């Protein structure tokens, strides 16, 4: 290897080692600070240097261009870095300054059921920006794993998992009697009218899941209890059992419509892992109104540079499998046939 090539290679190796150290440092300080750190000026210089040394490698080592798998690998790396820089905060600022492309890199938006919104709160929450279209939330739903369970526990720590099936009597054994779930509420509401307490289920108007439970002692005494998902500690002093209604969320679903120029331009039910893509942005299910289930929080992310990064991924993977699996398999076959 000539001295010059040797130096380029050494510089490449040095930058790789430096990146190992940066990664380990980043792992120690946690995601938030790591993200800030890699966007600082010295690190920006580092990223540029890495791209330059990769380009220098392609120029100096002819094999990196001649052997397709090696060029896929190294050009793939360049594309990934370029895409990531183009899509970074600094990249967005440069595009807005020089090309007049004013895109929101990332932010969040809260939308109430039945309303449309085009304001995005930027990171940090101090500034808002407008999207060129608005998003309407038709409906927001939570889904839970089935079957749901009512947990019954004695003061001594003995416990049962009673499946929530309305009307089915569940035996707790000879000493404890039985439990029957009489009613299941989406939104438990109570009204006092004169002497009477009126208990109703009003789904849609709020969110207060509850169960009406009948407990029968071995002697035949019956008692009725209400168990609330959102108020787990709710018991009477004389109760024999601690009752809990705990459900596991399996999915959050927002039914969205994109409204552009007064018309519905797109429609999708988004869930975790199934974002909506429109107008250069991805919209993700991020959070929701835990109190009443009436609004959803979406995360908005610009797709700038994403194509480059994905193309780079594809080239990198193809190149590496080709170089290290396919080529060496062929080399071995050739060797054998000789």
């Amino acid at each position: 290897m000539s001295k010059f090539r040797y130096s380029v290679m050494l510089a490449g190796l040095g930058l790789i080692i430096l990146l190992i150290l940066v990664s380990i440092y980043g792992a120690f300080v946690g995601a938030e600070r790591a993200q800030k750190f890699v966007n600082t000026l010295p690190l920006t210089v580092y990223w540029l240097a890495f791209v330059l040394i990769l380009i220098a490698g392609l120029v100096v080592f002819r094999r990196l261009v001649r052997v397709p798998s090696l060029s896929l690998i190294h050009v793939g790396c360049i594309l990934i870095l370029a895409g990531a820089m183009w899509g970074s905060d600094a990249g967005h600022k440069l595009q807005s300054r020089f090309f007049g492309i004013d895109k929101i890199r990332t932010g969040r938006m809260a939308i109430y059921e039945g309303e449309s919104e085009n304001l995005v709160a930027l990171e940090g929450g101090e500034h808002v920006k407008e999207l060129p279209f608005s998003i309407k939330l038709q409906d927001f739903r939570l889904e839970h794993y089935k079957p749901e369970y009512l947990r019954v526990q004695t003061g001594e720590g003995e416990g049962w998992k009673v499946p929530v099936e309305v009307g089915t009597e569940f035996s707790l054994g000879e000493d404890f009697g039985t439990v029957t779930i009489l009613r299941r509420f989406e939104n438990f509401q109570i009204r006092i009218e004169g002497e009477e307490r009126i208990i109703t289920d009003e789904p849609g108007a709020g969110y207060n899941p509850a169960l009406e439970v009948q407990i029968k002692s071995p002697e035949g005494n019956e008692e009725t209890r209400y168990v609330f998902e959102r108020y787990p500690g709710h018991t009477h002093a004389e109760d024999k059992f601690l009752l809990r209604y705990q459900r596991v969320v399996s999915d959050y679903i927002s039914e969205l419509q994109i409204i552009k120029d007064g018309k519905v331009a797109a429609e999708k039910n988004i869930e975790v892992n199934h974002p909506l893509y429109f107008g250069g942005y991805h919209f993700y299910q991020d959070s929701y109104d835990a109190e009443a289930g009436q609004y959803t929080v979406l995360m908005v992310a610009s797709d700038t540079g994403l194509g480059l990064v994905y193309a780079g991924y594809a080239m990198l993977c193809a190149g590496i499998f080709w170089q290290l699996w396919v080529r060496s398999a062929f080399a071995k076959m050739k060797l054998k046939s000789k």
Partner: protein
Amino acid sequence: MEIKYTFQGLLIYAAMGAYLFAFVMTLLRCRKTGQALYLLGFVIAVFSFSYRWYDVRHVPLQNLFEVFLCMGMLYPVTVFCYRILRVGGVCGDMLIGVIVLFPSGFVFSAEPQRLPPALQCRLFVPHVAVYAISYIFMAKATFQAICQLAGKSASSDETLLGPEESTYRMICVGFPLLTLGLVLGSLWGKVAWGDYWGWDPKELWSLASWLVYVGYFHFRYMFGKRRARINSVWAIAGMIVIVVTLLWVNLSKLFAGLHSYAM
């Protein structure tokens, strides 16, 4: 440290016992018995994994207990490397079998969990599976690298590759899978969290382990076999970072990141 007095636990300990016994027998030069025990351990490991699958009713690659359980079925990798790639170290594989089953048997809880929404993605199983296989190859590479540093050949069989070449061969097989695992993880991050790279500790450790192998390739390209010992040190360093990626970030609850539920 917990001992599992369940059928699942019993299967894990049986497989570990068989692997350990196989290892000892091979060291004592009873190769035939060692082979038979290794195969027996494999059958038990497969049964143990299938039993788990039946038990939780989804592909059991959701938490570290299940990932290590999966890695315990490494016999086919041994056969593939021995027959096709001419890489020995069968004895080392038996030991690797014991080591990878240890966390399942004694460290991680077997309590089945329901899939949280973020894990319900088609990319999830391939992402984890590809990593698990790649880690087995990297572990084999490490064994060869240690043999190289100790100045021993992993096998007396002359037709097999020497330890330095074997290390390289193993990393050549494992590295593409490692790359694919990283890329799949990134694509999944984009779908689940909105960003293909979140700079969280688990991502950064896995990037660091990938980069150590990138460093290995380029160092070995520059110096070839002249610096064989340093080549081996690179390979071992890669494994150390992998172990940190797998265990340390999860175990030390000091650095809560996006992957905290991958426990």
